[in-house]
């Protein structure tokens, strides 16, 4: 082999390990999942090709519709609560002396696993002896006490609250970092021009915070689509499949009912949705970031 041929090959050799790993651990399983979604696989014995049957069944399945709607609740809930509250708390903390202590306190829930969070909140929401209903009764608000994890869509909202409790810390920290990196000059200029706090936030701080917002919203979007462990621990998607999300439906169909082909179809749909959302989101955000 001549030196020049080796030279041409060198970049590919550097790439080979990563291409190999991505191929084996990402592309092959993805292709296999797509293939499985076109079969009636049960995880046992041989599966036969059924074309798009699993996908047409999905459209007609009321459990899939509920799951899809719940996923939308999760995406909206996490965006509003986690991102909105995270930003609000970062703004408040950035102007208090207790910031250092409070940062640690708010971050603490993020250090425990989602499963542990699920167990804690399962007991908080217990209708008879749970902390929430007990507190409501103590405050004379017993009328508001309910079976939080039973009635849809309250059960989904309750779990979003638990998820927010855990995810708020990291979101807040990211916004705090973003706020610290904002240059002082435009803010001082706006203050000299007599801008009110609200106008200052809306027209100066928020636009300057956009790169960090892009990151936070992106992470929150992905997390809200893939949330599984917390739901599985708290309700297993129930009762009567009322609190399933697409990720839970995928798991349940594949590993509880062993409709592996059907479960794979749910996985493909979920991946396609996340892919489309991610492409549009990143495209929109980076275009705007470049403008500023």
């Amino acid at each position, binding site marked *: 082999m001549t030196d020049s041929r080796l030279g041409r090959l060198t970049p590919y050799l550097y790439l080979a390990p990563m291409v190999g790993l991505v191929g084996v651990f990402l592309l092959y399983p993805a292709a296999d999942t797509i293939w499985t979604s076109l079969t009636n696989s049960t*995880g*046992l*014995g041989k599966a036969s090709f059924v074309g798009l049957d699993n996908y047409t069944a999905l459209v007609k399945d009321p459990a899939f519709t509920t799951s899809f709607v719940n996923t939308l609740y999760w995406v909206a809930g996490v965006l509003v609560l986690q991102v909105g509250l995270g930003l609000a708390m970062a703004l408040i903390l950035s102007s208090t002396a207790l910031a250092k202590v409070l940062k640690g306190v708010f971050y603490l829930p993020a250090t425990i696993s989602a499963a542990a969070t699920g167990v804690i909140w399962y*007991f908080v929401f*217990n*209708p*008879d*002896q749970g902390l929430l209903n007990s507190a409501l009764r103590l405050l004379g608000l017993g009328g508001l006490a309910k*079976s939080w*994890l*039973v009635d849809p869509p309250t059960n989904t909202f309750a779990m979003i609250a638990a998820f927010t409790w855990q995810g708020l810390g990291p979101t807040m920290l990211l916004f705090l970092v973003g706020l610290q990196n904002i240059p002082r000059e435009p803010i001082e200029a706006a203050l000299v021009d007599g801008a009110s706090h609200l106008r200052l936030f809306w027209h100066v701080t928020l636009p300057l915070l956009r790169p960090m917002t892009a990151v936070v919203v992106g992470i929150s979007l992905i997390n809200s689509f893939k949330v599984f462990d917390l739901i599985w621990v708290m309700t*297993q998607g*129930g*009762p*009567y*499949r009322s609190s399933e999300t697409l990720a839970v439906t995928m*798991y349940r169909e594949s*590993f*509880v*009912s*062993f409709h592996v082909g059907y479960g794979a179809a749910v996985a493909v749909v979920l991946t396609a949705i996340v892919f489309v959302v991610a492409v549009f989101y990143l495209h929109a955000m980076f275009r705007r970031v470049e403008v500023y």
Partner: protein
Amino acid sequence: MSSELTRNDFLKLGGAAAAGAALFPKAALASLERRTRAAEAAATTLKLANDKVTWKAWFNTAGQAAAQAVGVGWDALEYSDTTSYQAAIRTSGRTSKVPDLYSWWSGWLMKEIVDADFAADVTPIWNKNAAHYSKGVRDAFTFGGKVYGAPLYVGYWVLLYNKHVFKDAKLTPPTTWAQFEKAMATLKANGITPLGATIDGRWPGFIYFEEFLLRSNPGLYQRLMAGKAKYTDPGVVSTMKLWGGLIDKGYFTNPASVTLGTGASNFTSYFKQGKVGMVQIGTWFEPSLVSGGLKPGTDFGAFIMPNINPSAPKVVIFETGPLVVAEHGANKADAMKALDYFMSRKGQATWVKATGFVSPRNDVPSSSPVDRELGATIQKGGYKQLNRYWEATPHDIVEVAVDQFDKFMLKGGDPLPILTTIQKQADKTWAATK
């Protein structure tokens, strides 16, 4: 890999121990203990996979006894989540990575692993012990004339009741439906919830449906399980209405708040405090009550729910789960040996002593007076034993049904939409099965 204690070893061990015991009793005992441990350590240790986390100590006690007795023992390999457990066995069943022994479910779930060639044929072990096990238990694990597992447990589905609560309310175990209704009404009037019910873990949804249908029309239950009757048949609808009526009367615990497992709201604590009078459950639940501090026979007893229709035959739900030898396991021969020991009188005696369970083996008595009494009632009364809902009908139907029954327990109302949803799945499943 297997290393049994040879005859020579045994004689040496016994001789040394005897001689030592005469001269230096303490030293001899220590030496015997060391040698026994060495024998255990030298024995083959298999993996016994299961999803029964609270049984870990029992499995290991029985495994150590097996190691000492036949040189092949086992350690429990625990999966805390049934779903992950099933997935682990299903994905490894065809490979040598599969655990040597594993617990499973009888009925349709077992048929799946037998069809997939995951379970070893253990018919010779059954033939050896034929005189000591009932045909019913053997049949539960028999497919195409071959037997594919040993009974890990057997349980009858009965009403466990708090004896103190019954005594305070001047009640005795009812023998007719009218007496049972009166007992429920009396308990309710005394501020006690008559029946424990939960949807914790989804599956318990079928419990009262199964029992009330059985008490109304056992033949219909059997036809329904076999796909020869429909969930929308009038007999099934009226059973649901009966159940709904009892829910409306407040005879059941809030199914969303009571759990079967641990935690603040676990059923045992409610039962122990006398807040709940009875619960329809498998006798395998008794050890949970015992570990909660209740004494069988003194604090709690058991009776079979009386028939609604007095002319209906005497029936009781029976449940059993197999211990399976992995067909493709790396230590199949040793696993067969371990199973052989497990089914033997000695093996069963050790297992029953550790667990407090009822042994399916007729020469191993149960340690619980409640179970002994129940066993006698079933035998003398000529009760026909029917397979539990979970195992008796295809699992695709069960999965849909338990969710629908959970919904009914929470919301009540018209049962027809619930039954129609289940029937839709039943039509689909039976069409694919037949």
